[in-house]
Structures are given as C-alpha cells and as structure tokens.
C-alpha cells in the first residue's frame, strides 16, 4: 500500500520554501495588474 504523502512530510516540506517566492511574486503581480487595469479604465472613461 502506498503511504499517504503526509507520511513523508519531512522529506518534502522544505521544497515548499522554494515555491514560496514564486507564489509571493505571482500574488503581488496579480494585484498590481488589477490595480493598473482599473486605473487605465478610469483614464479611458
């Protein structure tokens, strides 16, 4: 029987530390993009 992924948490949790900057950058850029799009819409109006 295959062990559930949580059983090997100690092996891969540190991998999330490599994913974290990607997630942070994507979230910040997403908010920035939304803000700029709104500003452009206001300027166009």
């Amino acid at each position, binding site marked *: 029987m295959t062990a559930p992924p949580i059983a*090997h948490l100690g092996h891969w949790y*540190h*991998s999330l*530390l*490599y994913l974290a*900057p*990607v997630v*942070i*950058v994507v979230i910040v850029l997403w908010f920035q*993009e939304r803000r700029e799009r709104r500003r452009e819409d206001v300027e166009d109006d």
Partner: protein
Amino acid sequence: MRRALLAAAGLAVGTALALPATALAHGLVGKQDLPIPRWLFAWAAAVVLVVSFVALATLWPRPRLERVHERPVLRVPAVLEVLCGAIGIAVFVATVWAGFAGSETATANLAPTMVYVVFWVAIPFATLLVGDLFAAFNPWRAIARGTAWVFARAGGGTPAPLAYPTWLGRWPAAFGILAFAWVELVYVNRDDPSTLAILALLYAATQLVGMSLYGIEQWTRNADAFSVYFRLFSMLSPLHWRERTLYVRPPLAGAPRLDPVPGTVAMLCVMIGTVSFDGLSQGALWTGSGAIAPDLQQRFINVGFSAETALEIAFTIGLLFMVGLVAGVYRLGIVGMRSVGRGHDVTELSRRFVHSLIPIALAYVIAHYFSLLVYQGQAMAYLVSDPLGDGSNIFGTATATIDYNVIGANGVWYVQVFALILGHASGLTLAHDRALVVYARVREATRSQYWMLAVMVGFTSLGLWLLSAAAQ
C-alpha cells in the same frame, strides 16, 4: 512469496543499473558548507529578478537589442574552414572507432566522455565565448560539403535540393534533442561505448540523407538537432561567424534575430525540460525510498514488464513530464501576456518571445553540468592517450588523474546560482526589449512583462530546487 522476492530482486537490480552512480553521473563531489540555507538562495534570486525588472521598466524605455550593428574584426582563409571540417571528421571517426574497438568500461573508453562531456557540455560553454564553434567542426556537414565539392569539380554537380517544408520547421531538431536526452537519461545502456558508436553512425547517416534531399544549409539550419542546439546558444555570444568573417556585437544581441519557425518553442522547451529532468532524477523525490521512480517502476512491473523496461518507462514518463511542465509554464506566461493590449494571439506571442528562453536553456546547462565538465572533463587528458583503454600511451598522458580539489562543492554551488540568476535576468532583458517593439505603449509593454517575470522567478526557483535536491 518467491514471486515477491524475485520482483524485489529485479527491482533492486534494475534500480542499481539505472539510477544514480552511473559512470558519468553528474552529481556534486564533496559536501557543501554554505553560510545560509540553500532555499534562501531561491529567495535572494527572486529579489534580484524583481529588482532587475524594476530597473528595466525605468531605465530601458526603448528597444536596444533588436537592431544592433555588428562590426567585422577578422576574416579567415577558406583553408581554415577545410581544416576545421577535417578535424571534426577525425574526432568523429576516433570516437566511433573507440566505441567499437575499445574497452567496454565506460570510464576507460574515449567514446562516452567525448559524447556526454566534450560534445554535449563543453561545446555549449565554448559557444558562449567564441560563437558557433560546432558549425566549423560539424563532421557530417563537412562530409556533405566535401562530397558536393568533389561532384562539382568532376563536372557532374548535384541535383537541386527539395524545398524544405515550412510546417516542419525545427520539429526534427526538437525530436532529435529529445531522443538524445532519452539515451543519456533513460536508456539503461547509455554508457555502453559500442551502443554509442552505433547511435553516432545512425545519426550521421540520417543527417547525410537529409542534407542530400533538402540541401546542406537548409537541413543544417532546421533539422540537424545538434547544429540547431549549438546555434541557439551561439546567439548569446558577442562573437558571430558569418561567411568566414568574425563580427563583434553586444552579448545577447544575436537572440532577437532568431527566426521563430514552427518547432522553435518546442525545441527550447525540450532543451530546458530535459536538463530539468536530469536534475530531478538525481534527487530524493525521484529516486529515494518511497519516491516517484521506484513506485512507477513497480506499477509497470505489476502489469508484466521486466524491471529494466519498467524503469525505462518510468524515466520516460518523468522526462516527458518535465518537458511538458516547462512548456506549460511558458504557455501560462504567454496566455497572461495576451490579456494585455489588443490584437495579439497566443501563437504569435509565443513565437515572438521564444528567444527569451535561450539564456535560460544555457543557464540550466551551465548550472547542471558545470561540475561534470570540471571533474569528468579532466579525464580527456588520459583518454586521448589511451582512447581504447588498452594500456597505450600515445601522448604520454595516460597516467593523468582527475583532481577533485580543483574546485570545492561550495564553489560549484556559487557558479550554479550565479549562472541561473544571470541566465534568467538575461531572459527578462530580452523579453522586455521585445515587448517594447510588440506593444504600442511603454506602460503596456511593462505590464505584459509581469507575466514573464513570474515565469522567470518560477524557472529560477525550479532550477535551484532541482540542484538543491541533487546535492542532498
């Protein structure tokens, strides 16, 4: 019980054959002693890329790399071209001869080191410095050109080549590199010298047939996998060879000249994805206890495959998955970019920005294979004197050894991190420069590159994670 034991034994043998510790394994030598945890380098790399992005957005308002003047600095005589071609043929013949006639031990035979270290790794490094080196030494191109010259001198000439199909583009090159990567990373007999010699002859024969049908230059530019592979890297070099003349240009300035014919995106995704899989396959996530590869292998054994075949299938899945992952991340960035401005579709944007992947592909090659080149590259000193591994000493260097202290594990890690950051910052620069041409307004161009920044941070983190996993 007996079946279970046999299956376990088969699994162990197959794993031992094909998992780590092959003759030319790419892993680091020695233990790293870094001042900060490895994951912090990924955070620092992300910060560097964000700062680079802001600097580009504020200090780079006009395209600077799209139309660059190349300055001629040197013209070489035709005889040098002939000499380089002859050297290329001689090295090819020596490699094939060693593969067939030499020792079956991979580390004692010239062929595996020549193919996997000198040809596959050293040429990209050299190409970055001196331009498209392989074009001058390409053995099958030299044979084809020599044959065409003889026919022309004999007065017969050669029939006009067929028109190369536009839709085919660089697809043959993409499949060629994928096939080579499969042999290098998946095939269990990858280090067998005679197998390598057979494959080299098959590849050369295929190229000669292709060149005879579609013309030497047309075939070489599009379908010869290694010519395309090395030529892509040469576009980053400040030196450019064209018609026996050496031109100087700013670094990266050759990349915007890439003609994005069909298959170019696939070619670059294959280049990055296959090296990524090489990194993944050395880490505990893929090969450790309870990891993906043994689990996948067991599933294929359960449906009746031998341990060896099951392992090859598992590795093939991993290889294709990584190529698909790279293609998917790039596609995501392009789809996001399309949401900015109007009148651009995904295919057009995908092709117009594909040159920004070239420095990433080279950064991955440098980061993953630097240690292999530095350590295993030294083996050439004794292999050129004893190419067959039979005790000969042609140049008096057969007793040379590999100095593993030439660079420490920390030094290797810093080179890898530096290469990855510089490669991705270069990719960001190329994409920003192209965006200024594609988009009408600077603000739109900058906004479109938010997506490319996310892609670059993603690729950098992936690269560092793979290297870190392999170093553990």
